[in-house]
């Protein structure tokens, strides 16, 4: 029963090797999706290219559905899968800062590294900026710690907040995503910029 590496005595080097292999899959799918292009990513916010929305929601939903089926068949213990802890203030403030960084830099960290690997110089600067940001955070940590630890709620699951089963929430999420995909494709027609999309 998964997760496999949670078995006692699982060798560390194999764990790290697996991380590397998963990273390869991660980088490969990001690049194939076109996330190595900052103008494609930024297109999300001007309507001419909504690949980000499609890939992002498809991926989240595929993993969500897959993990629940694995759990139903007794193959994966979801109690041993990490659930992100909810720090209300930090999530919101951090999210806003990330949104600003996204629209300025045109990447997020994963896509930035992936784009850097195929030779995008802007991505290289983005990653360097990211390292600077991490350094800055470490140095300003004592100042920002109260904010970061404020309003801790623990690893809350969203279906528990609404009081419905995980399966039902998944269905609602799929319906919402299907609606968004449809709107996104309409938007792509309305805000089409063939001059940009032809180039990227």
């Amino acid at each position: 029963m998964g997760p496999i590496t949670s078995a006692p005595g699982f060798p560390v080097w194999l764990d790290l090797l697996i991380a590397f292999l998963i990273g390869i899959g991660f980088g490969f799918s990001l690049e194939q999706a076109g996330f190595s292009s900052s103008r494609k990513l930024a297109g999300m916010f001007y309507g001419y290219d909504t690949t980000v929305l499609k890939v992002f929601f498809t991926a989240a939903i595929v993993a969500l559905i897959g993990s629940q089926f694995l759990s139903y068949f007794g193959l994966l213990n979801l109690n041993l899968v990490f659930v992100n802890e909810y720090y209300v203030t930090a999530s919101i403030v951090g999210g806003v800062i990330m949104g600003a960084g996204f629209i300025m830099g045109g990447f997020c960290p994963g896509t930035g590294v992936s784009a850097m690997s195929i030779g995008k110089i802007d991505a290289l600067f983005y990653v360097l900026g990211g390292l600077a940001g991490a350094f800055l955070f470490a140095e300003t940590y004592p100042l920002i710690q109260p904010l970061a630890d404020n309003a801790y709620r623990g690893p809350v699951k969203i279906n528990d907040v609404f009081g419905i089963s995980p399966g039902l929430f998944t269905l609602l999420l799929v319906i919402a995503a299907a609606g968004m995909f449809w709107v996104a494709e309409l938007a792509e027609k309305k805000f089409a910029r063939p001059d940009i999309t032809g180039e990227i």
Partner: protein
Amino acid sequence: MILAVVLPILVLVLTRSITRDHFRNNAAKWADRSIHKTNVITAKQLDESDGKTLVIELDDLAEATGIKGEVIHIPADRLLDKDNQKKMRGAGGNIVLVSEDPALSARMWMMLSQMGYKKLFILNDSTDNEALKYKFQPDTVTRPEL
């Protein structure tokens, strides 16, 4: 394409939900009666209850004589045998587990109820198994160094 993905999963889900060879009940919900102690029954309560009762002796020492209902003897390690399960599923009333060893009947109760047996009880004499028969006497003279 759609069918190729959805159909196999649907078939797997259906087979899994039909077969009996695994647990599929919510563990907390089905253990709930053990928290409220409504799964323990005395011979007197059993006498006063309505409906059919199947009494199962889990070990050789268990004496279920004089108890209301049909008494059968099934050693604990044979509980899951096909014909025994058939008898239990067909009982159509209360099922009462009797054993000399309260640990054994508690364990079998939990396992069987997780398999979906609803009207399942442990037979106990009138004393509460979980009551402490001794009283702690504090010793206020000596003080350990901590």
